[in-house]
């Protein structure tokens, strides 16, 4: 299956996020690898996704799950070789699947040779590749992101007897983007992978590239200028490739990352995700519609990236204090589930393994404006292990079968990079790909069919959205439109059956056709359109004027 050559391919994409380490171990060493992932591309193709996003696979001391990179131009030996990666890339492309890789621009590992050189002496040529200071009083207005572990954004380096700047862990020194040599070097890194054939970068932690006194050191104009320069080079030398921004910010602050269509192609919509969970728990569409109404228009070539869960905690940075308290009480009563300003849990446990709620949330994920990202294992309802530290509880091995090591690896269980989920509800004997493939009504089959419906029309990826405001606040209803095509989406956020009257006068004469079963519903007339929905039920109707 050839790759879609449309330069806006990312608008129609369904992205599957996976860490090479977690997916499939081909050589029996207990760690997932490129060859293992390549062997499972058929599964992903069957699922219906058309892009994979690989978490960092570079050489790294792995003190932050690979986001602490020690060499940008190689792969971690545990995952295979560069050749293995090339083979994976080519196989994915041959199946019509694009490959998005991580690029951590903001910082390196403190084990990176650049930092080792930089700290070695104050007159080292790479001294200015990082942000050094004789005091820890600079940039006082800057927040600390990892509140649970870090007390300051400055760390003392006993070797060079100076402080270095770090926005994340202290073992991740920030690169100095005021230095042209750094900017040039990081473009060279990106070019290295682009020339190999990667389709896109997810650029990590982009708001923090530049520091300026008296500011929050986030979202600075200087940072945007650097990003625009990267985009310009990308478009000139590698047209059709894509940049995805990781910027955990409010919508208004995120908007500049799209520029005038000349910065990022895509950006995660971080504030929406917690509000989807909030709306579901409150049984009230208000949090969802409010944040989407506050979301500014973006250039036509740009796209939001939507997700329910990912490799990090369910971040609650972009909510109010009242909302955060509510979310903690609603979804993380056990304080061990909380990390930093978030909740370190997977989708299924967050939703009490309620199939109806899991389906509803995925239904919204795939019908709201943006490109959906599915976190590996969520398509089968994998659980988590909150007894593992940091965010490792949501990064356990993929559960392929009920057999040895859940089908993930032939290694001795003790050698696995992380223990498999073993509890009776979410353990691999109960939740695995093989058994769900054998059951026509499994979550996996349901996900396959919904992805197919989503991909049957471009309206979800490219269409406009018009919210309906039925008086029943438990119903979230909207119409997606693209050209002559209109799709009505009606979601019941409540655990009880609901009746709703929709004002569809604008669509008078249209016949709603339910997109999963293809059944027709009564024609839209002058009166409010009455629908009844079961608990957590949702409908996608194609509105046809016949």
């Amino acid at each position: 299956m050839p790759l879609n050559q449309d330069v806006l391919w990312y608008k129609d994409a369904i992205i599957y996020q996976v860490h090479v380490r977690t997916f499939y171990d081909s050589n029996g060493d207990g760690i997932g690898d490129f060859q293992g992932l390549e062997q499972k591309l058929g599964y992903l193709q069957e699922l219906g996704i058309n892009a994979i996003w690989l978490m960092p696979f570079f050489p790294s001391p792995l003190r932050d799950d690979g986001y602490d990179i020690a060499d940008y131009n190689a792969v971690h030996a545990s995952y295979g070789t560069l050749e293995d990666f090339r083979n994976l890339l080519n196989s994915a492309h041959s199946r019509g699947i694009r490959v998005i890789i991580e690029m951590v621009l903001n910082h390196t590992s403190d084990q990176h040779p650049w930092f080792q050189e930089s700290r070695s002496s104050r007159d080292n040529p790479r001294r200015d590749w990082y942000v050094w200071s004789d005091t820890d009083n600079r940039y006082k207005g800057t927040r600390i992101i990892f509140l649970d572990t870090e007390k300051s954004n400055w760390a003392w380096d006993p070797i060079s007897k100076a402080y270095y700047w770090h926005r994340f862990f202290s073992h991740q020194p920030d690169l100095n983007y005021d230095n042209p040599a750094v900017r040039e070097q990081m473009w060279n890194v990106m070019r290295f992978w682009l020339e190999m054939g990667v389709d896109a970068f997810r650029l990590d932690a982009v708001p923090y590239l530049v520091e300026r006194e008296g500011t929050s050191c986030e979202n600075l104009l200087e940072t945007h200028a650097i990003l625009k320069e990267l985009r310009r080079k990308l478009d000139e030398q590698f047209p059709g490739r894509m940049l995805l921004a990781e910027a955990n910010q409010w919508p208004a602050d995120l908007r500049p990352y799209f520029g005038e269509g000349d910065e990022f192609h895509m950006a995660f919509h971080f504030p929406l995700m917690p509000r989807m969970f909030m709306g579901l728990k409150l049984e009230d569409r208000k949090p969802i519609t409010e944040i989407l109404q506050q979301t500014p228009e973006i250039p036509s070539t740009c796209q939001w990236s939507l997700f329910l869960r990912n490799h990090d905690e369910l971040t609650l940075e972009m909510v109010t204090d009242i909302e955060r308290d509510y979310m903690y009480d609603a979804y993380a009563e056990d304080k061990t589930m909380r990390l930093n300003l978030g909740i370190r849990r997977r989708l299924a446990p967050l939703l009490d393994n309620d199939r109806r709620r899991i389906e509803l949330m995925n239904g919204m994920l795939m019908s709201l404006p943006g490109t959906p990202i599915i976190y590996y294992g969520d398509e089968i309802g994998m659980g988590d292990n909150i007894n593992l530290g940091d965010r490792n509880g949501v990064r356990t091995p993929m559960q392929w079968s009920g057999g040895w090591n859940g089908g993930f690896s032939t290694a001795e269980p003790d050698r696995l990079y992380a223990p498999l989920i073993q509890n009776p509800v979410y353990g691999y004997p109960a939740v695995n790909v093989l058994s769900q493939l054998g059951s026509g009504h499994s979550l996996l089959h349901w996900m396959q069919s919904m992805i197919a419906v989503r991909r049957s029309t471009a309206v979800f990826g490219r269409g406009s959205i018009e919210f309906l405001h039925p008086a029943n606040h438990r119903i979230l209803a909207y119409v997606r439109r693209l050209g002559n095509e209109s799709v009505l989406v009606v979601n019941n956020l409540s655990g009880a059956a609901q009746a709703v009257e929709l004002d569809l006068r604008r669509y008078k004469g249209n016949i709603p056709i339910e997109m999963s079963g293809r059944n027709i519903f009564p024609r839209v007339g002058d009166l409010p359109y009455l629908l009844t929905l079961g608990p957590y039920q949702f409908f996608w109707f194609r509105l046809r004027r016949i």
Partner: protein
Amino acid sequence: MAEDSFLTDDLLRQLINVGEVDILVGLPTHNNAKTIGSIVQTIQSGILRWFPRERAVIINADGGSRDGTPELVTGASIDDVRRGSNPYALRTLHSISTKYANSPAAPVAFRTILAAAELLQAKACVVMSPESSSVEDEWISKLLRPVRNDGFDLVAPTYRRHKFEGLLITNLLYPVTRALYGVRLREPYAQEFGFSGRLGGEFLTQNVWDDGSPGDGIELRFTLAAITTQHRMCQCFLGQKDHVEQRGADLVPALRQTVGPLFSALEPDFPFWSAVSGSQPLPTLGPEHEVLLDLVRVNRKRLREMFATGVAELAAVFQSILSPDTLAELQRIALLEENDFEYPAELWVKTVYEFAASYHKSVISRDHIIQALAPLFRGRALAFITEHRNGSAEDVENSIEALCLEFERLKPYLLEIWKSRE
């Protein structure tokens, strides 16, 4: 409107949209545009401040206002349509209005509120007066929290009052309720009160709506029903209560709203109250009462004249209602000079009890009995004011307590005449 239902289809449609709620605020209105805007805003603030996570609704039962009252109430909704003017809220707040008739009728309004609470499965409810100008958002919390958190079924208010304010309550309603029903409930006829959905649902099914008996004062019947069905009750101090326009300037309507329902309730409740002796205090959050002592002008001369005139002109009526001894004593004190005037507690208690028994027996038209009580109450009020012209808060409270004890002491007298007249 569907047959056999007092709920309109429009209200039902609105309730469907609201769905199940945790908290319901009932607001009976009729041409309250002067006050309702600020009251609704205060209610909204109270919900958002004290119950930000709860599913809440404001239900306005309006008796056909022509001054825009319903629109002021529905303007308090918080939704995702009118974003600009909304205060911050975690969830949607519905504020809906229904018109039940072209005239104010408290029982219909209250029944509508109870029905809405039942249909919405409201766990904790509060009824707020549309006339209080001193309402604070904390009242919402004080009236709902005991229901929501502590399992009480009825939360009655207590207020900071002037020593001569609410004399009908302090000299009649409170002591009679206390003596007969055995509960020291300071405000048996409250216009703000909290209650559980459970109590509301039970009262809704009682046979009090279609027999025409409750008329005004349905809230009093509700309170008495809570007592007789032995639901958990408490009191909560709200602070000062002001009205934009002082109600009750006309005494007879006030008696019809309060004493009428009280006397009416005594008949069905006889098995209960006849078995009660003494009284028990209620759990009270905050002080049971606070008394203001500001100087106020009272036309005592006019009160005495109205009392004396009434005793004289209604002598024939009183002969049907009162015992000869009581009537004779009333005729004696009617001749007292203003400064010497007194209406002793024992005489007042006997007066009230004999009226109650006569009401029960319907010796004459029941409404005439209630009307006939008006001049006598004026006499009692005059005596109370005269006695406590310079009295301290403690003096006033001691006097009320003594009166209550007198009602309790003479309760056997009521039982005796109640039965004898049967």
